[in-house]
């Protein structure tokens, strides 16, 4: 395990150092002296790189100590792009003959750039940092576990764990959670929010005649083989000027199979007339296609990272927060006993449906990509049998989740139980009165059961995963009726046992009490709601009369 995590740590560290080095190199330009310069020529040039074939070409000259120098680098970072518009925007900012300033390397006088850029590449460091976190965290967890085993033979202080080291694991979890949330958040902005908002904005763009200047299938080598992309350059006229662009989608560049790329190129043959859509407020912005396609669903992937990160962060924060009151502070306040409390279900029907939809959508969109790949391979006459067999259980789970969406959706139309308890904060050894009623078509319920349940809850780590086990220790039936007029509304009373455990919550362990309501509806999802209640210890008066 240590070697496995070491590889993660080493790979992550190498890439982290490389990215930080590049970010430092880009940042250094901000400290280079500014020198006046003249733009000699500017435009967009096509280079011999199919993955990023366009780059702004800007030649400028400057003088140092009476000697003339010429350079053509816009900035220190990568300037070639697959997006023609990006290259054109850069070159348009420096028209030929204009005067501006460049930044000259104080050590090498013929090394100059037109502008210093923020070291955006630094944000990429989050990716290798995930590897560093997994590797470092894994090694820590492995060796911490071993050291605990080694010292368990000697008499060690248990309470010392509360003083030191208790929160290290949680802090690590918090760090990983924040990292995942940051990566997921940033990717969601670029892959989901920006593409979709731009697509929506393009609905109002003006339909404009355009001519296809060039239409080619670009190809380049990647780790997974050769990637293909259709590159269609089109020309249109707006505000008295001719513009060239190659935008066909608002989703960042993505490769496709050769057949798809070829089909696109065939649809837009060179020299043909077509229409594009131009932003009337800014004619530099246009697109050949503003339809919503399946590619935009890829933007849902970062949401998985974001949700996982938010979940981990919330869990770690919750665990780190309770430094002292790990049991309810009201333990010592007898006045909290009285009163009536209306209970809220642990999860409402809308939350259940939304949660189910999100989970089913995420699962099926991920599985769907592989299914599409398998189907495409099959229709192309080269079926990937291994992939197809491998996908079967995942597809079945996906289907079950879709069924689950419908089930919870139907369940959302069920009559809703309302429970009221008295006293509001019951104690062990006291009587608890429970009143129930329903909203909705209660006459559909054929039998009703209300059970007071007690659970132990233990959270533990197995490898890198966190598990929570629940074990019921109490299941006290309060109501079990099938008379329709009794089901509508009623109340019951139960004596809470004196010699059991009260509600208790700590970072990893707990005892929970809840009221479980089950209404049986024929040929329809049953009513099932859980209402958590807090049962307090015996009062001081009762213990120490």
């Amino acid at each position, binding site marked *: 395990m240590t070697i496995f995590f070491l590889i993660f740590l080493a790979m992550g560290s190498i890439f982290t150092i490389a990215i930080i080095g590049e970010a430092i190199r880009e940042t250094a330009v901000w400290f280079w002296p500014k020198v006046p310069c003249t733009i000699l020529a500017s435009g967009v040039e096509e280079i011999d790189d199919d993955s990023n074939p366009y780059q702004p070409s800007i030649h400028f000259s400057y003088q140092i100590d009476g000697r003339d120098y010429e350079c053509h680098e816009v900035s220190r970072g990568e300037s070639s792009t697959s997006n023609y518009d990006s290259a054109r925007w850069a070159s348009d900012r420096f028209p030929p003959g204009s005067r501006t300033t460049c930044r000259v390397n104080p050590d090498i006088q013929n090394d100059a750039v037109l502008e210093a850029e923020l070291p955006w590449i630094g944000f990429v460091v989050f990716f290798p940092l995930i590897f560093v976190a997994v590797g470092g965290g894994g090694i820590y967890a492995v060796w911490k576990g071993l050291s605990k085993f080694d010292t368990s033979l000697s008499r060690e202080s248990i309470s010392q764990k509360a003083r030191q080291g208790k929160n290290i694991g949680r802090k690590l979890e918090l760090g990983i959670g924040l990292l995942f949330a940051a990566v997921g958040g940033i990717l969601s902005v670029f892959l989901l929010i920006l593409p979709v908002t731009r697509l929506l904005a393009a609905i109002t763009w003006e339909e404009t005649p355009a001519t296809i200047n060039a239409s080619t299938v670009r190809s380049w080598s990647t780790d997974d083989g050769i990637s293909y992309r259709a590159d269609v350059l089109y020309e249109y006229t707006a505000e008295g000027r001719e513009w060239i662009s190659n935008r066909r989608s608002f989703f960042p560049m993505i490769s496709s199979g050769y057949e798809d790329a070829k089909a696109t190129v065939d649809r837009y043959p060179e020299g043909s007339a077509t229409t594009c859509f131009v932003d009337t407020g800014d004619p530099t912005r246009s697109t050949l296609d503003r339809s919503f396609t399946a590619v935009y669903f890829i933007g849902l992937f970062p949401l998985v990272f974001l949700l996982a990160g938010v979940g981990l962060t919330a869990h770690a924060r919750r665990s780190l927060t309770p430094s002292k009151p790990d049991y309810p502070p009201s333990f010592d306040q007898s006045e909290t006993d009285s009163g009536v409390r209306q209970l809220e279900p642990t999860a409402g029907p809308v939350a259940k449906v939304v949660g189910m939809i999100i989970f089913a959508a995420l699962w099926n969109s991920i599985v769907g990509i592989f299914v599409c790949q398998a189907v495409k391979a099959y229709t192309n006459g080269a079926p990937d049998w291994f992939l197809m067999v491998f996908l079967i259980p995942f597809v079945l789970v996906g289907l079950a989740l879709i069924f689950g969406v419908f089930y919870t959706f139907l369940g959302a139309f069920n009559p809703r139980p309302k429970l009221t308890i008295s006293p509001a904060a019951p104690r062990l050894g006291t009587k608890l009165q429970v009143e129930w009623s329903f909203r909705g078509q209660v006459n559909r319920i054929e039998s009703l059961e209300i059970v007071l349940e007690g659970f132990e809850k*233990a959270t533990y780590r197995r490898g890198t995963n966190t598990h929570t086990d629940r074990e019921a220790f109490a299941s006290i039936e309060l109501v079990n009726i099938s008379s329709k007029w009794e089901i509508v509304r009623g109340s019951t009373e139960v004596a809470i046992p004196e010699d059991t455990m009260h509600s208790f919550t700590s970072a990893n362990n707990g005892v929970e009490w809840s009221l479980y309501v089950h209404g049986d509806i024929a040929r329809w999802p049953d009513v099932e709601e859980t209402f958590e209640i807090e049962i307090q*210890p015996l009062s001081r008066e009762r213990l*120490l009369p």
Partner: protein
Amino acid sequence: MCIDLADDRRWYLPGDSVSGRVGWTTEPEPEAVELRLFWHTSGKGTEDVEIVDDLRIEAPGSSGERGFAFRLPLGPYSFSGSLITLAWALELVALPSGETERLDLVVSPIPAEVLLESLGREPAGFTLQLGPKGQ
């Protein structure tokens, strides 16, 4: 190091007070000794430890003794279930060496830890097994 309870008992009611004397003879001389009243969990879940109250004696000398009195809270109880066991204890710790003396306590409304065993399914007539495990 030793912890002596005033009434020489190990079972306390929640809300009760725990008092007694602690003594230490340690070499080298500790910077401080701490008496901690705490509970901790064991079992399937990751261990939780919570210090409820403590008494810190700075520069205590290499030997000495001191009286103490703590008030127990009303919960959590000492209990044992199929996943979790929660136990109370007093610990006397010499710092920074970490030399430790521990005394286990039971904090419960009954003279034993509460056992979480099957309660119910019937509305009435369920039975509770009280007392320590195995008895």
